[in-house]
């Protein structure tokens, strides 16, 4: 499950002042294992300052093109791994990488006739770029209507690539930039050019509803992909729901700052009974620690990868007691109702909690 492979960096490309994309060389014998879907991510492992840390970064490359695996990484303020990648890695370095994972994927098939709405903000572009390029390349009859939010012109990742796509697929691809703090000289430039309009402000409900009104779906099988910070996801999703977009057509992936749920009182020193690989583990959960981290600190080896509530590798079933997930971007409401939880995000709400890794 959590096996890491050593892959060599073949390319490192500065995308903006504070972001980089990293391409890996994939040996032929790993082709099958590293087969991926547009929208999935790679989990990388570093040992920084003696501590093993894992992070997941979405692939911005497309699985249907002859190109190396590539992830996009934007510096997070004080972010251990993102700064390491941006500042210290160089071509030729070897990185430990897990096989691609993630449920934020589109079912892209040549015969499809769909309209894809892509909403992304900041580094949320990475999986969206992968989906975008794959759709345009693989589904010659589908349409893509996309908004990309950034703070200003200079923080737009993959700018050249996006412009090329706009030119190449002008009849099926609409891209509107949304800039929260646009630099005026550049905006003046844009205003004079019909091809490069942008919306001012953050991606919010009004932006979304106007955008869809202006670019209604042509192919009626429409799907909505959202990737960005939690608030952007929340806003976009609510806007779509207000417009009666059915929930099953909306797909989200959280990037950047997490949306915390309402503060929950964790049960201090609750008892955790965990069934893992046939072993029954009983242990107290220290305050503030997640069920996953509690087990890891006991030397156990529970499955996990992103530790961000996104990937669902650490999924478990709650048999007794209740837990609160600080963040859940992976499980559906129904899965939660059925008792599933992400152990990397879960803190106990009851005196005793019993979980099973299935």
């Amino acid at each position, binding site marked *: 499950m959590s096996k890491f492979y050593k892959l060599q960096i073949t390319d490192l490309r500065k995308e903006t002042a504070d972001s980089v994309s990293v391409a890996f060389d994939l040996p032929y014998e790993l082709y099958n294992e590293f087969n991926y879907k547009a929208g999935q991510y790679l989990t990388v492992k570093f040992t920084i300052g003696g501590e093993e840390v894992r992070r997941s970064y979405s692939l911005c490359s497309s699985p249907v093109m002859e190109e190396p695996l590539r992830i996009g990484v934007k510096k997070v303020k004080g972010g251990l791994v993102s700064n390491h990648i941006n500042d210290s890695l160089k071509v030729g370095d070897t990185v430990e990488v897990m096989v691609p994972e993630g449920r934020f994927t589109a079912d892209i098939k040549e*015969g*499809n*006739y769909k309209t894809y709405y892509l909403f992304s903000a900041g580094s949320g572009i990475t999986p969206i770029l992968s989906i975008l390029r794959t759709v345009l390349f693989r589904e010659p*009859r589908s349409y893509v209507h996309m908004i990309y939010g950034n703070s200003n012109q200079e923080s737009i990742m993959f700018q050249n690539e996006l412009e090329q796509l706009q030119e190449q697929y002008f009849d099926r691809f609409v891209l509107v930039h949304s800039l929260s703090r646009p630099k005026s000289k550049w905006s003046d430039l844009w205003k004079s050019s019909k091809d490069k309009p942008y919306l001012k402000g953050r991606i919010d409900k009004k932006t979304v509803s106007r955008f*869809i*009104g202006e670019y*209604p*779906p*042509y*192919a*009626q*099988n*429409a799907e909505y992909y959202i990737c960005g910070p939690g608030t952007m996801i929340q806003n976009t999703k609510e806007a*779509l729901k*207000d*417009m*009666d*977009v*059915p929930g099953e057509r909306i797909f989200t992936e959280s990037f950047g700052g997490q949306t915390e749920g309402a503060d929950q009182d964790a049960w201090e020193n609750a008892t955790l009974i965990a069934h893992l690989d046939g072993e029954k583990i009983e242990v107290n959960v220290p305050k503030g620690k997640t069920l996953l981290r509690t087990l890891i600190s006991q030397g156990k080896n529970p499955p996990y990868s992103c530790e961000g509530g996104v990937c669902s590798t650490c999924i478990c079933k709650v048999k007794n007691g209740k837990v609160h997930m600080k963040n859940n971007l992976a499980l559906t409401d129904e899965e939660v109702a059925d008792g599933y939880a992400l152990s990397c995000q879960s803190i106990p709400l009851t005196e005793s909690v019993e979980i099973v890794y299935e």
Partner: protein
Amino acid sequence: MSEKNKTMMHELPVEAYTSQEWLDMEMKYIFSKTWQFAGFVEDVAEPGDYISVQAGLNNIFIVKGRDHRLRAFHNMCRHRGTQLLRAVGKAKKAISCPYHDWTYDLEGKLISIPKREEEFPQLKGELHKCGLNLHEASVDIFKGMLFVHPDKDAPSIMEFFGEVEPYLGPHIVEDLVEYSENDNEPFYSREIKANWKIVVENYIDHYHLAHLHEGTLNMYDHARAEFGWAGPHYWFYEPLVPDYAKDVKNAAPYPLIDSVPEDKIGAYVPWLFPNIGITEGESSWNSFHVIPLAPDRTLVNIRTKVMNVSEREFTRQYTKSSMHKLWSHYGNKGKYEGDPETDPMASGDFMAEDVYACEQQQKSLYSPKFQVGAQAQRGEYAISKFQSVIKEWIEKYKDQ
């Protein structure tokens, strides 16, 4: 079975054109298994707008959601089957059945039943989980036209039309505007006393163009026609005759459609299975919808689109064209002499000529002497091909 029933129209028996049984089969196995023309995208322009259409045996309504996406549902209350929505209108957030006020949201979910507790104690829990939501259908857009399919999980409209698409005209239909004498009425609508397949076969018959329409469609160069089959669909193209081509800009009845490059001007006249033709010309674009009413009655609705120009510009072209010397030789002379008002064959109107031919052919089908004499191997190839597609389609679904 009498002798007559064994008489064949190329691939199909004559009774396929005269009997209710055959029409019933076609309704079940063709019209309920294909994407059916439902109008133009602009018919359902704004969120909340709906239209209801009959697609084979199914009455289906299409409604635009606030997300600007179309939904299609079978237009029938799950309670006792009453029709929910009339032809055209604007829906609020919910749809109520006029009979007992059962109410559904725009996603087709049942949201309210009057006197639910007293009258329907068996319906427990959330209403929309009681299995009484509206039956979903499929809706999609192709070439600016709305199509519906009675199945919720219909095969993609592009699976259906994809193969023929490359053979269609380069016209950008979405840029054109509808032209009609009366609002909300098709440009042309007429009930024809013939089986629907007779009408289709007339449409795809290349052999008759130079004869039945010798005085009306002679501005197209029949000798240079190209045609073929793509999936279940027929495609057809012919260029303008040189006389017309060289001055088409002045002679065309309406302003030339600017999305068609000069070297591609001509008539693109595909037939999309089973019952919608489009006629994509130099200055107009038409949908030709063939709706079976009875074994021997068929409604034809033609809607027409032209360039989106000012009325002045439109009138100027029309005047210029009507005085153009070309039309003294082409385009509007009856085949026979007679009163153009009462005699279709003297009308100089190619639709009147076609209607006449179809109705006369239908009449003969009842004659005990009727037989097809011979088939033009090129000019009528499409007819027997169309009939085999009909046969295939029925065979395919009959045993499912």
